[in-house]
């Protein structure tokens, strides 16, 4: 015997279908469930019929309660005459307004924080440098290496052509000398032995050039090139500079 589903019994309880009533007469189980639905719906209808009306004076109470909150509208369907902010001060909307304002404040603070962080990224890098050996040296020594390279190239060319006006070279070497010592000490402190060694060799060359007579002779230049291996120093200086350029690019990424 196939029993009715609950949904079928519910539908049946609202509209008696004679073709199905036969099964209900034969099946006590379905009949019991059917009667539950009927009783429930009759109970609901009885409660609806017995629903008490409002207490006397409901209309007055409602009107008195809402009247102060009603804005006066303008002619036609224009905006209300009252301030546009009026409705924001109703308790429920005030809560939403407050929540929205809080959201805006939090969002703005977050955005400002991100902006601040981005703008101060460079200074943050500098501040973090002590934790990564060579970073300070990397940032400040590049220009010094470029100037030193130019000086060495000029010396090299002068040696090849056996003539040089040592005045400008000596002044440049003298200028570089002081900076070079400072950078060499920094490189040692930053535990960058390759750079420290190059700067040490450069220091000796700069001392020689800074203290040479006004006009370098071809023999002097040849001796300097040979003794101090200017070509080798120039090569090493370029290697160190390229390595530092690469490190700087990596740190930017």
């Amino acid at each position, binding site marked *: 015997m196939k029993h009715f589903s609950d949904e079928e019994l519910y539908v049946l309880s609202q509209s008696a279908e004679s073709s199905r009533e036969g099964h209900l007469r034969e099946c006590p189980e379905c009949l019991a469930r059917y009667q539950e639905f009927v009783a429930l719906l009759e109970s609901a209808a009885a409660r609806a019929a017995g*629903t008490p009306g409002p207490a006397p004076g409901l209309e007055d109470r409602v009107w008195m309660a809402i009247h102060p909150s009603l804005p006066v509208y303008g002619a036609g369907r224009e905006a209300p005459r009252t301030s546009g902010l009026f409705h924001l001060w109703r308790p429920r909307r005030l809560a939403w307004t407050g929540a929205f304002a809080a959201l805006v404040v939090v969002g703005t603070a977050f955005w400002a924080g991100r902006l601040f962080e981005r703008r101060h990224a460079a200074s943050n890098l500098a501040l973090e440098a002590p934790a990564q050996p060579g970073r300070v040296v990397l940032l400040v020594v590049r220009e010094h290496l470029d100037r030193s390279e130019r000086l060495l190239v000029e010396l090299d060319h002068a040696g090849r052509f056996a003539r040089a006006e040592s005045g400008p070279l000596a002044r440049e070497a003298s200028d570089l000398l002081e900076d070079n010592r400072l950078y060499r000490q920094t490189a040692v402190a930053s535990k960058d032995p390759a750079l420290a060694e190059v700067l040490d060799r450069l220091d000796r060359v700069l001392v020689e050039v800074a203290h040479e007579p006004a006009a370098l002779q071809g023999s002097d230049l040849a001796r300097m090139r040979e003794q101090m291996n200017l070509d080798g120093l120039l090569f090493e200086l370029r290697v160190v500079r390229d390595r530092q350029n690469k490190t700087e690019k990596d740190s930017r990424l």
Partner: protein
Amino acid sequence: MQLSGRPEPRPVSTLQLMDSTDRECVEAVLNGDRDAYRDLVFRYSGIVFRAARRITGNDADAEEVVQDTFLRGYLQIRNFELRADFGTWIYRIGVNCSIDLLRKRKRQPGPAGDALPRAVDTAAGPERLLLSAELDWKRRTAMARLTEVEAAAFSLRHMEDRSMNEVAELLAISLGSAKQAVFRAVQKLRREMAPLKVKQ
């Protein structure tokens, strides 16, 4: 949507007159006469109250719903189509306000009328009276366990005597969803009430 099968139907001639007056009231409100809304409050408070009373289950909540309904109705009156029926429009707002209140009550659980059993048949004997009170309390508890939409759908269908199409339209859901909501409510209530039926 025209409401059919209202608990308190009005004569056709009066209905037409009322409709005309409703429109005049709405136009007056929109033209700056705030007090014209008072007529609408007086005219429809009872209908909204009864619907809210059936959905929320108690007088205090129903009265709060009526206040909220007319306040919300006033603030939205510029969206009201003058050709539409104001009673139907405010009734729909009332149903939505009732659902909102049920949601609020669930977030803030309290006694709300279902804590104390209340006698419903004072002419019966003590034992019958006790059972009746227990049944009433059980019914309230069972209603409170329905979702807001289920409670509203059940009340509209089986207490307000709305058609399924009207239930769907009032709750702004599909016809299938409305049927499902009503049936789920019926099933939950039936299971909750079954033990008492046996005792009864």
